[in-house]
């Protein structure tokens, strides 16, 4: 649990008793908890930078939990969701899980089931956040390349030899070698394989 000491569990449940109970349960295992009665309240707070997850009641007064899940995805906010419901049925849980929910729990649930699901969700979110940070770093490096260097990088990761690249961009092979050296350095790539992996993460489109 120490590695996730800064993790936060967000709870959205319109039933105050339930909300408080889950909040307390989460805190009893040393996690940070923030609880809200509605989805709107949750959207009004900042919650970035550390692994987090959402414990969401399926039946919310204004908007169903499933609708809220979709709205978050549409808004680009990726956060693992654990659904809890007082009367869940199979189709509903299937729908939720298909849309990327971590777990679908029926009230009353075993506390360990919820805590396990939260643990799982936070781990996933930690990985996802690390991934996101790495991509952001790569993007920064990629931004630092000149237009010519970006062009050369794309051609390199597509598997071309220096000679081919030279003819492709109408420059001498020596010039291509210089650009290539710059790309490897600026991108902090240790090998071409490493550079290909970076290009993949950056989702660079291959040349035609």
């Amino acid at each position, binding site marked *: 649990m120490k590695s996730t000491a800064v993790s936060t569990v967000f709870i959205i449940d319109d039933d105050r008793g339930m909300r408080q109970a889950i909040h307390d349960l989460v805190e009893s*295992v040393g996690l940070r908890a923030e609880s809200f009665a509605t989805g709107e309240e949750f959207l009004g707070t900042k919650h970035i930078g550390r692994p987090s997850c959402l414990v969401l009641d399926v039946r919310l007064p204004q908007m169903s939990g499933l609708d809220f899940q979709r709205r978050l995805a549409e808004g680009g906010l990726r956060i693992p969701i654990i659904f809890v419901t007082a009367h869940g049925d199979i189709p509903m849980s299937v729908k939720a899980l298909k849309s990327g929910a971590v777990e679908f729990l029926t009230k009353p649930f075993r506390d360990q089931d919820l805590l396990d699901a939260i643990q799982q969700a936070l781990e996933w979110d930690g990985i996802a956040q690390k991934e996101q940070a790495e991509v952001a770093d790569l993007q920064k490096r990629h931004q630092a390349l000149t237009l010519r260097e970006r062009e050369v990088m794309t051609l390199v990761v597509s598997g071309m030899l220096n000679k081919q690249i030279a003819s492709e961009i109408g420059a001498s092979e020596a010039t291509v070698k210089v650009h290539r050296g710059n790309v490897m350095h600026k991108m902090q790539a240790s090998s071409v394989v490493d550079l290909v992996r970076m290009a993949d993460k950056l989702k660079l489109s291959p040349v035609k």
Partner: protein
Amino acid sequence: MANDDVQKTLADLSRDLQESKARLEEAQRVAHFGHWEWDLETDVVVWSDETYRIFGFSPQERPMDLATVRAMVHAEDRERLYQGVDEDLLAGVRPAAEFRIVRPSGEVRTVYSLTSDRWSSSPGDAKRDASGRPYKLFGTIQDITERKRTEEALKQSYFYLSEGQRLGHMGSWAFNDSGHYWSEELYRIYGLDPKNGAPTVEQYLALIHPQDRASMAETIKRMQEEQRGFDQIERIIRPDGQLRYVRAVAVPVVEQAVFKGFVGTTMDITEHQLLTEELRRERAYLSEAQSLTHIGSWATNFYTKRVFHLSDETFRLHGFDPRNGPIPLERFFDTIHPEDRPAVSAALENAIHARADYDIREFRVCYPEGTIRFLRTIGHHNRSGELGEYVGITMDVTERKQAEQEREKLRQLEADLAHINRVNMMGELAATLAHEIKQPIAASITSANACLRWLAHDPPDLDRARAAAVRIEQDGNRAADVIDRLRSFYKKGTPPEPGIVDLKEIIREMTALLRKETVRHSIKIRSDLNEDMPNVLADRVQLQQVFMNLMLNAIEAMKDTGGKLTITSRRTPSGQLIVSIEDTGVGLPAGDTERIFDAFHSTKPQGTGMGLAITRSIVEAHGGRVWATANQEAGATFHFTLPARTEADA
């Protein structure tokens, strides 16, 4: 010449004379013709034998004189006769007269007499007195009574004929070589003056209505050329412009194979024709009306199978085409749907034997092409008539029937909807309640988990554990509150409003209300209620709900099999009233029968599990008890008690 010869000749002559005289007398006798001589000087009257007979005497019975003769002339004719004779004689004319005589027997005869003063072979010999009156008269007298009678009869019959023609508006005519005869009435019919004589063919045709003229001209032409008779109705226009209908009949006269011309009659049938047309029109209207309303009329004897009247619509109602002519009564019966035939036959036979009216409100007939229609037929026994004689109507009630079925379907749908609504509402209610109860329970479980975890901390976080325990208590109370609300919900939040309630009436109401359901599932409801069942003091609406729930429950249990729902009541020695609702359905679930009264305990796929719970709540609120027992054969019986509080306690 010998004397003998003379004698002989004389004898011969005498014999001849005798013979002549005998012949004359025989001739007179045969012809009823007599003669007489009257000597005015001696006033001796000599009569022939036949004259005696004419006057009612035996020949030569007695001598005659003038006074006797005069006395025998009919008093009414006497003066006229003698005056006439005198005048004629003076005028030198031979008197001829017809007069009546009265025979001694009182019989009246009519005679014709001719008088002559020239009786001898030389007419100039007549002896006359100074005034020129002859001294001697000769005369004949003929009994013309028979001829007279015949004439009278003829005259009479002509009168009758003519009068008959006039009364019957029938004229007669003859057309032959000797000319063209029209009876008086015929002139009258055509509005012509008899003085102008019978019209020519051209004149006649001019009287015919222009639209009928060509056909009549053709008929006359054919009649003349082919010597053929005819019988036809035509319209004529009288000279005064009046339109009349006449029926003209012509028959050729053939005597011994020789064509002699035509005789015919013409009858004015205007009134008859107008009446016929009116009747025909009315018949058409009636037929049209029957066709529009699909009501047919008929009159028949079911016993003798004789049919007096069958309107076109009656044919059509049974799928027959009236244009195809009459159809035996049995074939009408044959069109009745085989399933309905016994009932119709029985109803008819009962009515016929009871000589009573009948009304068969609904039966089906099958048309050849497969269509089925619903008919109703009403018959009135013809009391003055024979056994089995009925007059009646038959009508098509298919549309009404279909409308009824539609309505029934609609009612069914409404009932179904109401039922579904009820189930849905209860389902909704149950889901809501389940959620509301689950929330606090789940919350308290979670809080208990948290509490345990706080206690498991090292050192235990007692503050947090206590806070969790407080929440557990709160949530527990919250759950209890929800259950209280649930109870008050089906009590409608108000305590029972007791009033005097007649259970029999409630059972009647509920039976009527559930009739559709019971009919649909072939369930018979029977109530066997204690005659002296007292009224109870209860909340009427809630008791209705109890009966409704228990009866619906019973129907539900029998809906796939049909069955019998029996409601009984009795009083216990302690004065309690026990009502039992017994069904022959699927019976009680195995296990604890008490559980079926628990809320949300349902053994039915679409059940809410609330019906019996509500029932128990209501019965208990009334101080009663409800329980179920399994029947020995099939099904279950639900009982409930109500304290028999009567009006006196109210």
